[in-house]
Every structure is written in structure tokens, then in C-alpha cells.
């Protein structure tokens, strides 16, 4: 697992409103970030009840304390190699509108504080599908972190 960039010392001087916390997640070797405020729960592997005829990226649904949460397979959504049967993906439960979605990811990293102003637009050469789901990226010390937009993910799932 890679180490993440510490908050730059200068950021403390700036107004705190520009600082946002992101939860870093790993899907198929790539680091992504989700605004921490959107994250409801992080769950270990859950048995998912599949929904026949649902679009491929929708794995099924789980029962989270009496609430039905739709499970989205991030590997499929991002057009990466699907999870193997041995892999036990983690669940990141996020809220969008009145609905909850659980994102299946390889691993969960940590929460990092970043200055929103440092977020850069996605390069034009990036996979168009990825660009659809993200609205920018951060250059961390050792790697790039694409910020996933929950609304885009949810909407994309709806369209599918």
C-alpha cells in the first residue's frame, strides 16, 4: 500500500473551508478518493443477494440494519477485471439522494485531508468511462488519486 501525501503545511494557513477529507480506496490497482462526508459505512465482505436481470455492475443488494442497499461492483463499473471468487471485496456504503449504494472495492485506505484547490481536471487522454465517473484528480506523493463522484456513479447505474 502506498503512503499518502501529508497535508502541506501551507494549507493550514488557508481557510479551512477549502480542506476536504477523502477516503482513499483501491480498485484494481488504482487509487480513488471518495469525499468522506458521503461515506456512511465501511463494511467487510458481505454476502450479496443477487438481483436477476439487473445490469452487470449491480451485484445485488444487502441488508444494512434493516435498510436495503444496492451493491455496485466497482471493478465492473470501471471496466476492470472482475473480482475472482476468492476475493472478498470491501463495501463502502455511500448515500445519494434518499438511496444508499454500497461500492465493492479491493481495499480501503485511510482518510486524507486535501485542499480542494489542488484538485486538477482529468487529463483528456484518460479512459472516457473513468472520466464519466470522476470530476478530477489529486497528485499525491507517489500516485494519482481520482476523485469519484457519487452522484455520477449513481446516475450512471441508473442509466444502465
Amino acid at each position, binding site marked *: 500500500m502506498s503512503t499518502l501525501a501529508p497535508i502541506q503545511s501551507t494549507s493550514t494557513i488557508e481557510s479551512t473551508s477549502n480542506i476536504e477529507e477523502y477516503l482513499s480506496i483501491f480498485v484494481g490497482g488504482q487509487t480513488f478518493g471518495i469525499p468522506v462526508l458521503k461515506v456512511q459505512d465501511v463494511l467487510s465482505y458481505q454476502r450479496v443477494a443477487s438481483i436477476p436481470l439487473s445490469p452487470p455492475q449491480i451485484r445485488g443488494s444487502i441488508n444494512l440494519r434493516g435498510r436495503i442497499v*444496492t451493491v455496485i461492483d466497482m471493478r465492473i463499473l470501471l471496466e476492470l477485471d472482475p473480482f475472482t471468487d476468492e476475493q472478498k471485496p470491501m463495501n463502502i456504503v455511500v448515500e445519494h439522494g434518499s438511496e444508499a449504494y454500497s461500492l465493492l472495492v479491493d481495499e480501503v485506505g485511510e482518510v486524507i485531508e486535501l485542499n480542494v484547490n489542488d484538485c486538477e481536471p482529468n487529463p483528456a487522454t484518460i479512459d472516457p468511462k473513468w472520466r464519466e465517473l470522476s470530476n478530477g484528480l489529486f497528485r499525491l506523493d507517489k500516485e494519482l488519486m481520482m476523485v469519484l463522484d457519487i452522484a455520477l456513479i449513481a446516475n450512471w447505474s441508473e442509466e444502465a
Partner: protein
Amino acid sequence: MDDILGEFIAETNEGIELLDGELVRLEQNPDDPELISHIFRVLHTIKGTCGFLGLPRLAALAHAGENVLGQFRDGSITVTPTAMNPVLEALDRIRSFVATLEETGEEPSGNDSDLIEELNRVAKGEDAGVKLASDEETERNGQHTQEDLYTRIGGLSSIDMAVEIFYERLLDDDRVKEYFTDVNMDRLQGMQRAFLSMVLGGPDEYEGRDLRAAHEHLVEKGLNDEHFDVVAAHLLGSLVELDVPEDVVKAMATKLESTRSDVLNKPSDPIEVTEEVHANQESQNVDEPSKPQTPSGGESKKASARTIRVNVDVLESLMTVVSELVLTRNQLMQILRAQKESEFASPLQRLNQVTSELQESVMQTRMQPIGNAWSKLPRIVRDLAQELDKKIDLVMKGAETELDRQVLDEIKDPLTHMVRNAADHGLETTEERRTAGKSETGNIILNARHEGGHIILEVSDDGHGLDTDRIRDKILKNGLATESEIENLSEQQIQQFIFKPGFSTATNVTNVSGRGVGMDVVRSNIGKIGGTVELSSSAGKGTKFTIKIPLTLAIISALIVESGGQRFALPQNSVIELVRITSNSTHKIEMVKGTPVLRLRDRLLSLVNLKSLLEIENQGSQNETYVIVTQVGTQMFGIVVDRVFDTEEIVVKPVAEALRNLPIYSGNTILGDGSVIMILDPIGIANVNGVSTSGEDSYEESTEDMAHLREKTSMLIFKAGQGAPKAVPLALVSRIEDISLDDVENAGGQPAVQYRDQLMPLVTLTKDQQPFKESKQPVLAFSDRGRSVGLVTDEIIDIVETDVSVEMKTESNGLIGTAIIGGTATDLIDTTHFLGQACDDWFDVQRESSFGDTGEKHILLVDDSSFFRNLLTPILESAGYKVTQADNGANGLEICQSGESFDLIISDLEMPIMDGFGFVSHVRKETQFEETPIIALSSHASPEDIARCMEAGFTSHVEKLNRETFLSRLKECFAERRKAA
């Protein structure tokens, strides 16, 4: 402030809704003083609150409306529709203001001077429908003499206005203004009005005791002569402004002056005019609500003592939480059941019970009387009646029947639409009713009642019924069906077309209806909440819609089933029966060209295999399956599943947005064991699968128009030998078997197979057809009187719903003729021929058993479908009858009158030119056949239909295509005839 505004909006909406109904009632009972006072009070409250909240436009309008009502109440003008119209319009405008207020927090800008002017004109009695009622007023207030100040001032309405002006002035006056800060002016005005009326000797009584405390308080505060003068001057000024005669004002002044000393010195006297009120709002007591002039605040306070207003969101979330609790309870109970002995058993039982009670109570909070959904209707009907110039009575029965709030909301619009329809299309004009010999006033009747877990809601009118001819024209015009298709439809089936999209029978598109939003929307809206609509209409008598809706949507009873290792819930109310199928059960799933079907009693059921529908992998072999017989609308089909579990109460949760486009699910839920399962939607499944038809627009036909479909014949299309594909009515085929060459034995020079412990002879269609080219071939088994014959085919092609008409007769044996089915010329098989071919003694047996007497019987067969004539004639002829055909009732009658003699007449019911009913009554009356047995023939029959047949003069009734009962019925008829003779 926002809270107050919200409260105001809620209260005003409630008030307006109430007023709508009450005003219409007032129009009908103009003399009900209690009603008038009540309406007056509601409007007054609205006005008062508006003033308080700083909503001048609303207040002005409410004020003007209130004035008119005041005049109604005093009897100075009479209640007439013309006088009522502006009041209702004012109410509508208030409603729209409140709506804007709710959205934006501000009342809309604009000017209502037009309406206010009109209201004022009405109030002054200038309207045509208004009379000056001074005489009547005297009568009403008979106990007061002409000198009575009250009367001379102009009654309560003048007092009302005077009070309004008076307070305006007071509030502008710096000298006394301070006394009115923080005062509920509305309440104050009400008290003032009552007080003045009392002082002047009017009919209103006033309980002054509340004022005493306030008065005391005021005197302590330094009430002095100067204050009194100011107030008195304003009061008198107000009267002058209202053109009250000078002598009256003077008398009033004297009266006031006489109270001066009391007011200023003796606080215990309940007299002074205004200031005393101001501090007492807190201590206000409740007056008797029945007293007509109760200050407006009083009654609502009393009424609210036992009810409180609760935000709907709170109730919703309470419901959600309780649903969760129910689920958790179910979960716990399930665990408990698995344990033999547990110390938790008794507390859990207790929890179980309490939860149930809680659930029930919470459900109760969601229950509302259906009358709430009806409250707007009297007004709508009244407006419609005026607009359309009809006289309409709206009768509402069972308004107290309760149902879930959510369901109530959903049903409101469809219901309104249906009542509008009834008023606009259903009922005739006064003129037409008179001509038809009906009472001038048409009735629209709403009736609600509980029935099982459902609410039955009837909307009926006593109008002219549905105009089938016009519907027929419209069907043709819109291309919803072809002329030949329509010909075969019964009245009832044609009526069903009004549920088709874009159907309105109103010749003129009126303001009221015919705007393209039709019964299709009504039906789909009701369908959305799991309800159904049925229609019955009889010409000249009226139309009745019966709506069946579930009591609640939140918790439903569902059947849990399993397919491919996954569980699903299926709403219990759509399940008709369960059929268990094992390898040796009588019921078997048969395949017709890859399409599974099930013969269940006398019908063939289309099947949907859940596994293949949901594309679930088959897990291992199954030696038993279940068919869930489901009904969607009028159509039945079976869903094949692997296992059936229990019925469970489930909480329906909407599916995630991302899954909304999967029509086969209506929701999802969490079971007692905590697992998430999907709820199947039978309607969606039927639609997706296009059950029962193979046509392109199978969806349309299968769901919307089964009635129409039933009239068509299911034809089994297959290939056998050379030439065109062959077809046979599916109903004549008792079984389709795959028979392999190895099973074929030779019996008496004829190929045969063992089938159900009998030897079934096998026949081929033509001599040149080579039986058993392949190892396995489908064989059609025709059965009759316990004997079967197998027709060897090369391949089953399809089952088609079609209306068959024979285009070309063939002379060749075994064929009835050729018809076009699905665009291809198809030979129609004469099954009788093959039955005879297989067993030479077949018909001998039949002849013997059928007819003890000798002599050829002559039968008249009346049927418009040449297909059926051609199908039945050989059957009859082979059974030894002589047959004469007629293609409609009129022709049949002609033949009957021609002098030919018949032993029996068989007639179809639905025919062009003259239908079966007409035919039989003419035959009974006008020919020598008044005693001859006449058998009615139809493709489907309800008990009502049969009763109608008997009434019309038929001897018996038999279903088309049921060969066995058909022949035995013939036999019965002859037997009875013999007995009678």
C-alpha cells in the same frame, strides 16, 4: 413566523376543503342557519388570520366573501346559485393564493377588485337572484320591534362592517393604539360583534364574563374618560361611514354614553366596548359552540382538544420504524421457533404481541375516511351541473370507510375523473331525461365498503349507459380493431375499449372531459396501487364502475417462492392457486414448440418459467415443480417455480433507482431471516413475457384486451405431410405427446401406441405422409367418449390466437377447408373424420347410444362464423343429424318461417343483424317452433349470460368447442323432448 405560516396554510386548506362541500350543501338547504354560521366562521377565521399574518390580498378577498355570507345569514339576500358563484370563485382564488403562499412564502401580487366588487354587489343585493329581504328579516327577528336599534342599524352584517371599520380606525389612532399591541384582533372583533349585537338587542347572546377580568386589568392600567371618548367617537364614526341613519347613530351615542360610568368605575360590569378585551386573550374561555355568534377562536379550540395536527413526515417515519420493528420481530420469532426451549420465549411472545398492537395503532394513524377523498366532489359536481345545464344529485355512501392515507392520495384523481365522466358523459341533459321518462335529476352514487382486505368503491350513475355504437365507431376510427374483429365482440367486450389509451366517447370535447386523459389513465393509476376497475353498463339504465383497492400498501401478504436457488416474494392477492407437478402427477407441463403450457381442468394455461425469465442457472434436476396460477386483469397464466415456502407479511420497499427499469419487480423486502429478496410483479411478468399471444403486439392484447382475445380461437398450427401447414382448434386437442418409433405397435394392421392404459390408434393426415421419419414425433391426441386417436404430425409450429374464417372449402377428406392464419394459407383439420377413420365402429357406438329412437333428426344451425358452421356440421352429420345452416339470426328466422321443420335449433349468441337473443324471442313468438328445443352456443359464458339465455327463451346453453358436452346436451334435449311428448 414560519411555523405560524405553515399552520395557517394547513388550517386554511382544511377550511377551504370543508367550505367547498358546505357551500354546496348550503345551496341545497338555504335555510339551515347552523350551516351558514359555520361557513361564516370558517371564512372569518381565514380572514382574521390573514390580517394577522399581513396578507392583505387574502384578507380583502375573504372579507368580501364573508360579507356576502353575513347577508345570507341575516336573510337579507337569499342563497341562489348566482349569488353563490362569486363566493365559490373567491374560495378558489383563496385556494390558489394559499398554494402560492406555500411555495413562495408570499401571497401573489395582483388585484382582486373585480371579484370583490362583484361580491359587494351581491352583498348589497344588487344581483338578479337576490331579493331585498326586509320583510323576512322582520319575521325572523319578530321579537324585536321596528324601533329596535339592532334592526335599524341593519342587522348583524352592518355590525360586522362597523366593527371592521371601527378597528381600522382604532389601530390608526395613536391615543389608543398601544392597547392593541399583541392582541388577537380577530378574536377581539368577534367578541366585539357579539357584544354590540347583545347591547343593541340583537339575537346573539354574549357571555361577558371573560371581559370582566380584562376590564379590571384595563382600569388598573389607567383607562380614562379620554379613551372612552376616542373609542366612542370611532365607533359612531364607523356607523356614519356605513350610512346608518342619523337617528340611529344618535341613539347609539346615547346608549354608549350611558355605559360610561360603568366602564370607568365598576369593573365588575360586563359592558365596555373594546379596550377591556385586549389583555384577556390568554384567559379566554370557550363559549358554547352551538351559539351562532361564538368568537371564531373558541370552537376550533374545543374541537382540537382531542386531536392534534401532526406532520405527515413524522407519521411516515413512524411507519417506517414500526415496519423495521415488525421485521426484527419476525426475525426473532424465527430464531425462537428453531430453539426448543428458551428463556426468551415468554418475553419474546410479549414483544410479538406488543409489536402487533403497535403496528396496528400506527396503521390506524394512517387510516383516513374515504370521505376525505370525496370532499371536493360535491363542488365539482355542482359546477359541472351548472356548466352542462344538468340536474345532478351526488349521493355519497360509506364515506366513513377508512383506508390508508397513501392509497387515499392515489385514488383521489382517478375518482375525480370518474365522477366528472359520470356527470359529463354518463348523465343525460334534463331534456333527454324527461323524454326518456326518467326523473329530471340524475344521480351519481359513490359507495364505499370494506370487503376482505380491500375497499370496494363504486361509482355509478343512472344515465344512458355506454353508447356501444359510438364506441364501435371510435374503435374503427382509431384503428384499435378491425371491423371483422368487432363483429365478433359482445357489447360488454366493446365497452372495455374505453380503457384503451386515447379513448373518449364524448362527441364534443367539452371543457369538462374529452381532453385525451381517459379511462386508461384511471385504470393504470388504480393498477399502480394494486387495484382493479371493472365496468358494467346497461343501455338506458346507467353505468357502474367498481374499483377494488387494497387497504394499505405498506405491509402486504406475500407468497415466498424459490427458483434456481433464489427466493422471491409474490403478492398473495395475485395468486389464485398453486399446482404441484411431479413426474407422476396428473398435471404435466407440456411443450408447444418450446413454449410450456399446462392443461388445468378445462383450460390451457400459458406458463412462464421464472428461471428462464430471470435467466437463472438451473441448479440440478428437479423432480417436482410448482405452477403458481396468477391472474392479471382477466388473463390467467402460470409462473413455474422450483419451490413454494410460506406466506409472509412483508414490508414493501421501493427498488433502487437503478433497477426501476426492470418491470418484473415491484419492490424488495427483508425477510424474517434478514435476507433481502425481490418482490415479483405479476403484471410486469405478463407484460415482459407477452403471455398467451405470439403476435407482435402481444403486450397490448394480452393485458389490455383479454376479453377481446377470448372471442378468438386458439389454433394449433402444425406440419403434416405435403402442402400447406395444418391447423386445428387447440381446444379439440386433448394432449400433445412426443411418441418415439419404438413405442409404436401394430394392432390389427393399424399402427397404435399404448396410451393411458389404452391402445391409441395412430393415423396420418394423408396417405403419402410417412409416419415416423424421425425417432420422435409429436402426436396430437384427440379424445372422445374415453377413446383416443393420435394424429401423427411432422412438427408443431405454433399456437396462434386468431379469428378463423374459412376462405375455401375443400372436398378432400379430413379437411374442413382452408383459412388464412398469420398470413399463410392453412388447412383446417376435421377431427371427426380422423376419429371415424381410426375406429370404424366409432360412430356406430355413438349413434346407438345417442338415439334410441329412429329417424333422422333435422337441426338448424345458426352461427355467423363460417368456421364454426363448418366445424360443427360434420360433427353433427357424423352423429347422424341432418343440418341446415344460417349465418345470422335474421336468416335463421326466415328459414324457420319458410315452413321447414326442425327437431332442434342451435344458435350462436353474438351475431350481426340479429343476435341470438333476438332470434330466439322471434322464433318463440312468431313460428311453429315455440316448443322446439333451442340451444344457445357461445364461446364463454358467465352465469349471468346463461340466465339471460334462459330468460330469452333458450332451452339450454352449451359452450362452443366442447364437443363432448355439446353432443350430450343435444341428447339431453331430445330425451326431454321425448318425455314431454
